[in-house]
């Protein structure tokens, strides 16, 4: 099955392990925060704290599910620079593989939000003339991200062709 998403004749490059740490943190923190507020509102307004408990329990279940998938999700990401195109794969349940020819790249961006910066991470996204392309590689080290950006820009220029 995995061969469906394997790159031809190359090894995937994987994301930084720090990306997994970041995902673990967000999985632990975000659902409880999101669920606590409604739980409190329900509890305070109705006084039925068992409903609040249920909501919290749901948050815990979500955290557990997300934690169970974090490593697999992290490991599911991969990218590889081939001679003429870049392959990106990700997804545990919904898998996908995207291939972007260098000649089609119009824009390569490095982004790093506050959370990513705290973990020393950055992501690279590629834009083509097609809005559906949506190729993005998260969880790279800043050095790898800038290297990739420079490399892709260079390759993009070398392969550039009209539309």
């Amino acid at each position, binding site marked *: 099955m995995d061969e469906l998403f394997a790159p031809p004749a190359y090894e995937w490059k994987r994301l930084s392990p720090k990306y997994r740490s970041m995902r673990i943190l967000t999985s632990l923190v975000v659902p409880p925060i999101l669920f606590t507020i409604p739980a409190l509102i329900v509890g305070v307004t109705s006084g039925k704290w068992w409903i609040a408990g249920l909501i919290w329990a749901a948050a815990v279940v979500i955290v557990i599910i997300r934690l169970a998938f974090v490593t697999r999700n992290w490991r599911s990401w991969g990218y590889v620079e*081939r001679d003429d195109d870049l392959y990106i794969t990700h997804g545990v*349940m919904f898998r996908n593989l995207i291939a972007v020819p260098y000649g089609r790249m119009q824009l390569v961006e490095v982004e790093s939000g506050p959370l990513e910066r705290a973990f020393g991470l950055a992501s690279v996204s590629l834009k083509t003339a*097609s809005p559906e392309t949506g190729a993005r590689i998260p969880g790279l080290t800043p050095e790898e991200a800038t290297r990739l950006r420079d490399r892709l820009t260079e390759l993009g220029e070398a392969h550039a062709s009209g539309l």
Partner: protein
Amino acid sequence: MSASQPQRTSSADPDVRTAPGQPAPTAGPLKPTERPHPLTPFVRGWLVFVAIAIGWGREIVTNAGENQFELGGLLWILPVLAVVVLLAATAGFISWYFTRFVIDDEELRIDTGAIFKKSTKIPFERLQSVDIVQPLAARIFGLAELRLDAGNSTTKLRYLTRSKASRFRDYLLTRAHGYQASIHDLDQQSVASIFTDLGVADQPLVQVSPQRLIVSFLLSTEWLIPAAISIIILVGTTAFQMVPLALGALIPLLIGMLSLIWRRVIGMFNFTLAESPRGLRITRGLTNLTSQSVPINRVQGVKTSQPLLWKPLGWYRVDIDILGHAHEDGENSESTASSVLLPVASRDEVELALARVLPGFDLDRIELQPSPKRARWLRWFDFWTLHYGWDDRTLITEHGWITHVRDVVPHAKTQSVRIEQGPLQRLLRLADVHVHTPRGPVNAVAHQLDDHAARELALSQLDRARAARAAEREHRAVKMVRGDDHDGDAELLAGFGIGRDQLLGSGSESEVFALDHERVLRLYRSRHEAPRQTAAQLRALYASWHGIDIGVELPMIMEAGDYRGRFYTVDRRFSGRNFSSWLQQADIAQRRPALISFFDATERLQHLQSPVPGFARLVGDGTPQQFGTLGELLSNMLMGPVQASRARLERDVPGVSEVWNRLHTDLAQRSVAPALVHGDVCPPNAYLSQGPQGPVVTGIGDFSPHTLNADPLMDLAGAVIFLELEPYAEAPADAAWLQAVAVERHGRDIVGWIDVYRRYYGFYFSNAYEFDPNLYAWCLRQLGR
């Protein structure tokens, strides 16, 4: 309000006309700039008035549910309205007053802005389309808007008289296509009329009659569904006597239906697709008349769709993706550029139109494959309509039953490819393949393929896209040479004192002309940077060998230059004649000694110095590039070609991955000091002269990106195995004989290594399946050994 405005503008008019010296913001030398037509602010103010009226009207309508048209309460709005209209009129006047434009033989420039001056100058070549739009208000006064599309920005020039607009349009389109023309030469041959916008020279291809437009609209799914829902709601609420409740749902539905009528019927009224001397042109519209040119080179894909009820009538609708258009979702049609090529047409008409938009596209030639039967578990509603297929130019996907949709994407326009698979699909071993095209109605997805087929489709689509783009580039380069540059060629050749009759040979990259006994002129086809870079690297390489005598003539670039953007080099001419053509007519007694001298010359090449130590690529993009081992260098060399041909090889060579692995294990065992490798020592690259003892190979030319610092055995193997490719009957026998010579000189071991390099070159040239079936067959033989 409408009475005061024209007065004001017309009173300002005479002064304005007589004051062309008004300094335009960035106009350097004084040049007669023009203002748009003086009625412009009035027409634009009118639009504002209409917009306000519509907004107000809507207010009344939406309030109508609760309070029965309480107009009285809304009367306060009238003075506000007057002020707004006045302000808009003033703004319109100011904007008109400060707008000036020049369209002449030198430039196209539009200056706007009262306080913040802005000057837009559009180079003629950048113009992608020039459309004329006549909104109703403008139309009444015989005015038209000129819409200039360049890159991703649209510049509007409004309003001009209709005749002026059409004249400018014709002139600009002529210039945009790269022809020289003078604005004064264009007579008024094609003037848009108030009803249609076809010039005299325009040949209508397809005309949609109002009857057909209306019938097709009434039968279209988009119309029938809201119509059916409204009827159901009406009937239902009447039955239960709750009509007022229904209004909340009915009003948005009715507005949606009205806007559909507006776009599909009013906007598409009198739709005509015509062939003009400058490409396809669409004119359409009942109130707002739009004339739009279809830039065929920017068509990125085509979608035909057929609602269920159109099927018995054999009608189709055709949309196209045009690069840069369609920021709106396709058919925001009242006045903007739309993606509709044909709103409704018969099959014959569709074919006629498609033949213009996608030249060479032939639906019947493409074999469509259905998705596997098991797709019915996921797409029970339309699994039997899922198809995909391709030929050497385009990819097709089909889906849908209520509306049957067929997306056609030329390979060269593929942006990227995505394979997707959800958990249910994984159970059923199915996957979707998305082929991405620029924004627009076309959305090519091959749904629910067998997973192997999906992977095959996606990877091979990339190869096809790459091949198609390369072919397009080639085509463009050749066209450039063949087209307007031919005179330039002749001029360049004349500058060297020769004519085209001195042509020695021509390849895909360049043509070679004899200059004299000493020199040849190599004229590169492409304007691209790549040949310059390669030539510069080769020149340095050849120069570094200057003074080294290995007993073989080597190439030398004496001069490189540019003439009107064409790149050329002057190379030293090899003495003698081409070895390959000589071989074809020589008999065996002559051939054998010549082949020995060819092998000698090949052996001597290793004495050449490499500019960098260690295993390395020497010529081409990103060189010199050094590698730690021979194996690394050679796998790097194979990466590109094998990636292109992998899908083909997997099909054509049983156990190809085993061959691949064996090649890498073998290469890993080779330990050798790096030496210069020509990389393509074959008879066409060798030159033969008559020596005292008969014909001798005296020169080897055409070093190239194949040139490496690597295993010296590669060239010896190459000399043997490439001989098999020569087009004369005894070539394989000669190659076998030459291999025996090699064994005699270098020992038995060499046979094994020649076999290794057979496999290497078998992979290396395997992308030949795209352009040279003969070479590809040779590759397959090498890999099958």
